């Protein structure tokens, strides 16, 4: 066991050199690397936290916009519903108006048809009634309808003498209108009845196919008449009041 002092010095130098080499190539790189890595990890953690914070804020913004969109959507839906309801109400009103208008037109049409029908009915009824009256008079009294009418007008003239005199004035003329030409005897009788009340008056006889059966005596502004129409007016009034009569007289589709 000997000590070589030259070797000791050499080993001292070698070991000091080794310390420097290890410090240069091992300790400092390792320790600095660890520090840099920790710093890098800290930096990345900070960046991650920052990114996470940005993500949170972005999420918050997104949620805010989402809520806003939902609110706008609800508002739009409500507006659309209101507009739809308004349009629906408008369409319903227009439909109601059209229905009402069509109903009115339909009623007018029905009323027009009813009037036409009633006019036709009245015209037909007039003829039928005059024919029935004519037959009844002929069968019961052996008298014509026109003779009865002349006698009836002659009776009505007497109470109206003053009125008729005032109406006829100085013209001393009167007119007699009938549906069919009036027979000569009847004309003479009517002339005689009127002359008895108003002497000197002259009658002009004429006939009008469009007139209702009967006789109309026109003296100036006065008018004495007997026509079937007055009966037909009564007939129409009674017809309007009696449903049974309407049912009989207005078959299928004519009752309203």
């Amino acid at each position, binding site marked *: *066991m*000997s*000590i*070589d*002092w*030259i*070797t*000791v*010095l*050499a*080993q*001292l130098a*070698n*070991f*000091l*050199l*080794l*310390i420097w*080499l*290890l*410090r240069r*190539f*091992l*300790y400092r*790189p*390792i*320790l*600095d*690397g*660890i520090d*840099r*890595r920790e*710093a*890098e990890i800290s930096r990345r953690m900070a960046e991650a936290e920052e990114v996470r914070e940005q993500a949170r804020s972005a999420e918050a913004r997104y949620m805010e916009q989402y809520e806003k969109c939902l609110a706008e959507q609800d508002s739009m839906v409500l507006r659309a519903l209101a507009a739809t309801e308004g349009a629906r109400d408008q369409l319903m009103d227009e439909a109601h108006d059209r229905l009402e208008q069509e109903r009115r037109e339909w009623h007018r049409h029905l009323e027009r048809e009813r009037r036409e029908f009633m006019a036709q009915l009245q015209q037909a009824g007039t003829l039928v009634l005059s024919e029935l009256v004519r037959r009844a008079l002929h069968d019961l009294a052996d008298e014509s309808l026109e003779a009865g009418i002349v006698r009836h007008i002659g009776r009505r003239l007497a109470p109206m003498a003053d009125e008729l005199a005032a109406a006829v004035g100085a013209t001393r003329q009167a007119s007699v209108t009938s549906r069919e030409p009036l027979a000569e005897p009847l004309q003479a009788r009517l002339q005689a009845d009127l002359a008895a009340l108003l002497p000197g008056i002259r009658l002009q006889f004429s006939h009008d196919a469009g007139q209702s059966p009967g006789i109309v005596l026109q003296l100036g502004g006065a008018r004495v008449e007997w026509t079937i129409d007055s009966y037909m007016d009564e007939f129409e009034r009674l017809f309007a009041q009696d449903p049974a009569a309407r049912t009989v007289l207005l078959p299928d589709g004519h009752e309203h």
Partner: protein
Amino acid sequence: MDLTPDTIVLWEYGGFRLNATIVNTWIVMAVLTLASWLVTRRLRPDVPPGRWRTLAETIVLMIEEQIRSITPHAVHQILYLAGSLFLFIATAGLLGVVPGFRSPTGSLSTTLALTLVVLFAVPAFSISHGGFRVYLRNFIQPSILLLPLNLLGEASKVISLSIRLYGNVMSSAVIVAILLSIAPFFFPVIMDLFGLLIGMIQAYIFAVLATVYISAAMSQPRANPPPEDSL
């Protein structure tokens, strides 16, 4: 049989003899430096460490942790010294299993050199930590009458450290050599394994003792204590 590689002279020029101790020390130094350079040449903070870098970091951090468990002062500076002691002794012991390689720690010159390094480092750390007067005061504590004993204690550190390491490594080599002559196939392998274990233990003990000596020298209160965060 050569008990120490100092006697193996490989080259001689004038009065200087290049023996196996120095050459094998260079080999150990080259291995350590080359391995360190290979591991740490491409360190990037944004790249995860590889297996070799992880191994190097683990070794360094383990040494640092051991030092930190002994003393909180000047950990990195002690790491450079004690870590180098540990790595040098451990690598020399590991290379001892290579046939023909004589561990330089089996030389009393090497162990004495390492001990002298520690012996010089202890006052250097103590003076840098507490100042020169504090260091000198350690030798007269608790009484000036103990100055001879304290000086003897410092000298005994050198002797105990150097002889312990030298004796363990050298004895292991001697035992292996003896067993090779008696039973060359089995027992030398077992003893080599024991030699590896003993080499690692001695490396640990040498480094820890050096740290303890330095730590004890720095444990005296400072003349002008720095702020705590300057540690």
